[in-house]
């Protein structure tokens, strides 16, 4: 008798386990067929969109830029000076850049607007939901000097109709390299406005979120500015430094938009093409 009862309890437990869990996410997220199973649910709140358009349905003929403020929530990232976490600096930079871009007529989609943890796959998912002309992942660190611009180290491949989730960026690599050059140029000219010169480093790396982005993508890492004997002259948390970098990035994206428009007029097809 009690064996029968135990079986019923077990069956009941299984039925409970199969029932849909309550959603903590305010907006259900569409999942790409090329996406791994573990990436199907973002770990925190739904991505937000600014620039007067919703994330999933950007207004046509507007240039969409995805800003990815790295880390957040329990993931603090690097510890910067004065015990400031990387997640705080990246969010501040993202908010600042979002305003600058919105003022220049861009539609901006951000991966996070508050102190929440977003998984790398969820960040790429946000970027891949919109026809973004540029995706910028923002980071900060205490190592090195100046601004580090990274492009994915994936090999460039010919775009195909279906892209593998983990290497989607490879189809956009040529454009990502061009975008990095544009950002580099803007940062090198950022001292023209009277601010100090910002050392710039161009390199390649492998970042889980960026490698899955199906758009021209760069990771920008803000580091303190050091002199030749490696003494810090400008901290990462310096608001003037952050503003200078944000202005340079906005100028770079403006130049990038002009390039794409010129290509479009020249019959190069739509800007979405990698």
């Amino acid at each position, binding site marked *: 008798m009690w064996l029968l009862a135990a079986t019923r309890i077990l069956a009941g437990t299984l039925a409970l386990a199969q029932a849909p869990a309550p959603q903590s996410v305010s907006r259900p997220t569409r999942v790409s067929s090329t996406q791994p199973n573990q990436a199907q649910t973002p770990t925190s709140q739904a991505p937000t969109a600014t620039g007067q358009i919703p994330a999933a349905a950007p207004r046509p003929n507007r240039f969409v830029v995805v800003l990815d403020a790295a880390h957040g929530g329990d993931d603090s990232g690097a510890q910067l000076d004065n015990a400031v976490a990387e997640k705080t600096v990246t969010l501040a930079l993202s908010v600042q850049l979002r305003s600058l871009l919105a003022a220049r007529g861009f539609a901006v989609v951000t991966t996070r607007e508050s102190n929440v943890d977003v998984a790398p796959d969820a960040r790429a998912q946000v970027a891949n939901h919109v026809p973004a002309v540029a995706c910028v992942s923002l980071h900060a660190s205490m190592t090195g000097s100046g601004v580090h611009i990274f492009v994915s180290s994936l090999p460039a491949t010919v775009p195909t109709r279906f892209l593998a989730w983990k290497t989607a960026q490879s189809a956009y690599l040529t454009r990502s390299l061009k975008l990095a050059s544009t950002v580099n140029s803007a940062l090198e000219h950022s001292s023209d406005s009277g601010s100090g010169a910002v050392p710039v480093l161009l390199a*390649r790396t*492998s970042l889980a979120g960026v490698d899955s982005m199906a758009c021209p993508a760069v990771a920008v890492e803000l580091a303190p500015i050091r002199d030749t004997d490696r003494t810090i002259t400008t901290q990462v948390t310096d608001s003037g430094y952050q503003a200078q970098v944000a202005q340079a990035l906005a100028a770079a994206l403006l130049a990038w938009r002009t390039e794409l428009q010129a290509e479009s007029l020249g019959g190069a097809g739509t800007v979405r093409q990698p």
Partner: protein
Amino acid sequence: MIPRYQKIVFFVLLIVSIGMAAYLVRLRERAHERLLRGEDLAPTTAPAVAPAEKATLMVANDMDGSLVTEEQSLPLPKDAEARARAVLEKLLDIYASPGALHPVPGVPRAVQQVFLLPASGKETGQYRGQLAVVNLAGPFADGHPAGIEAETLTVLSICGTLHANLPQITEVRFLVDGAERKTLAGHADLTRTYLTTEAESSSGTSAPDNAGSGVKP
């Protein structure tokens, strides 16, 4: 009503299952202890009796994001795996020393093991060679400075140093405390296989299209 004999069979099976599970757990613990004992027997430093040889280290520089070749003379064991571990320990000693251009806090036995396996290689032979599996210590990864540049340089300098001293190594994978870890310290992806050619052509001051590529997903 369940017959008495069925109840007895059920309880016997239950007890046997629990006993087997406990035994399996114990066997797993024993295997782990055996592994750790074996690890302790592995040479932690290059034997002093071995003749000093020239080793080539790819030393990272945070200021310009470059890898600089540096020759060091140190006693190296004949065994390839022990040799790989010895050169990596030397590289990480340099990073832990005061005034290092790529400072990384030193921990004892930062490189726990290096295993050399046949590379998964493609039919074309492009990736023919050996795969080095570098097992890093957890405290080393935990204490590593967080940042894309810092982590990427550590990974690439390890790849470059391995290939410079053991040219048959063409691919490198990383483990931390014997398990796969997503990132080194929050940024550099450790779930993928790195090609040593990425380190060879890595130069932070050059244009990005000159930097290394060739990821195997």
